[in-house]
């Protein structure tokens, strides 16, 4: 008789626990709101600093993203020109590049929509490059000054990104993006082996890395739905 009562009480406890757990689960998993709440547009301060302070690099970059819950669609566009003195001559390039990709925000429940993210980008670049150099050949031949050009080259690459976006004041945001760039491919003149691709960097280095310190302004058109706080 005692064992029957014990079994009945245990069964009731399991039933009620299961019912409560099911209710908690329903509350903990609200339906995600994938409608964008605004878009952010900004620029890379490092590129601007390098352009102002040095003579070997000129460039700028515009970054943007739009939110779909904790997923962000991102797009960047920029220009990049280098004039580098090499050991036996001079190398120059200039071009335009863009990147597009997705970031995943791991601070999805933050009411200010601050971000710590990991993402992926696909990059594409249109550029030209030239090199002038002095060659001293072995045996018989007089030295040669060579000028070689790669006038309409293009290339692609991929990026794994990691970064932070922090709301500073109203629509003002600061952040960084660290990039691991990989799998560069270039199409251009067969008489020129591309050295530096705008947006990517030195082609021989794969993977290669990049870092942006960025300032943004966020244009919001609707309020973010704050997820309910667990009690």
């Amino acid at each position, binding site marked *: 008789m005692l064992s029957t009562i014990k079994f009945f009480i245990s069964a009731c406890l399991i039933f009620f626990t299961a019912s409560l757990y099911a209710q908690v689960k329903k509350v903990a998993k609200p339906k995600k709101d994938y409608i964008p709440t605004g878009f952010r547009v900004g620029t890379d301060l490092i590129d601007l600093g390098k352009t102002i302070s040095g003579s070997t690099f000129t460039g700028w970059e515009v970054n943007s993203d739009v939110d779909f819950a904790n997923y962000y669609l991102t797009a960047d566009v920029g220009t990049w020109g280098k004039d580098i003195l090499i050991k036996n001559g001079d190398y120059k390039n200039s071009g335009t590049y863009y990147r597009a990709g997705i970031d995943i925000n791991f601070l999805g429940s933050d009411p200010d929509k601050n971000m710590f993210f990991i993402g992926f980008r696909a990059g594409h670049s249109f550029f030209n490059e030239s090199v002038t150099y002095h060659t001293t050949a072995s045996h*018989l031949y*007089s030295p040669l000054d060579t000028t*070689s050009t790669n006038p309409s080259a293009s290339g692609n690459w991929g990026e794994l990104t990691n970064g932070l976006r922090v709301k500073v004041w109203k629509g003002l945001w600061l952040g960084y993006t660290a990039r*691991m760039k990989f799998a560069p491919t270039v199409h251009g003149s*067969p008489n*020129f082996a591309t050295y530096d691709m705008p947006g990517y960097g030195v082609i021989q280095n794969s*993977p290669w*890395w990049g870092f942006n310190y960025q300032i943004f302004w966020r244009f919001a058109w609707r309020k973010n739905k704050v997820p309910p706080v667990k009690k």
Partner: protein
Amino acid sequence: MKYAVLILICVFFGSCLNDGNCLITATNNMHLQFKKESNKLDTLVDLTTISVSGTDPDSSILIINSSTKEILLPLDIHNDKTTFIFNYKNSSTPDTLQVGYTAQSKVIAKDCGAFTYYQNLNVLHSSFKESQIKAFSTSLLKDPTLGNSYSAYAVNYQIFY
């Protein structure tokens, strides 16, 4: 997920250590080996001189005056073809070999400079029969770690006598 972040950070720092090497593999020397047609083994060829086109003055001569089983011939860096005329010790009939090629400019690194790589080597004209010439590498390359020995250069052609 924290492990994924950790791995990503490690890869970022690993990439920072990936520094370029000043390894120059460019050369304008074409590597020929001489072989015996009957058994395909190395053979010594008695060369007196080799005339080379495109040099200054118009035709310079490499003085060999010895028996050799292989030779490095410098391609004309000012043109896309070079003609070599082989003069033998034991024959009054010289042989001619004209080769064509393309040049590719390549910046190795800022501190190393730029160099010309010669590629797509091909025989344009020759007094050797087609069966006497066997092509190997169509690029002129040198392994800088092996000094100036013949073995440092990629073999471009074998010529059978």
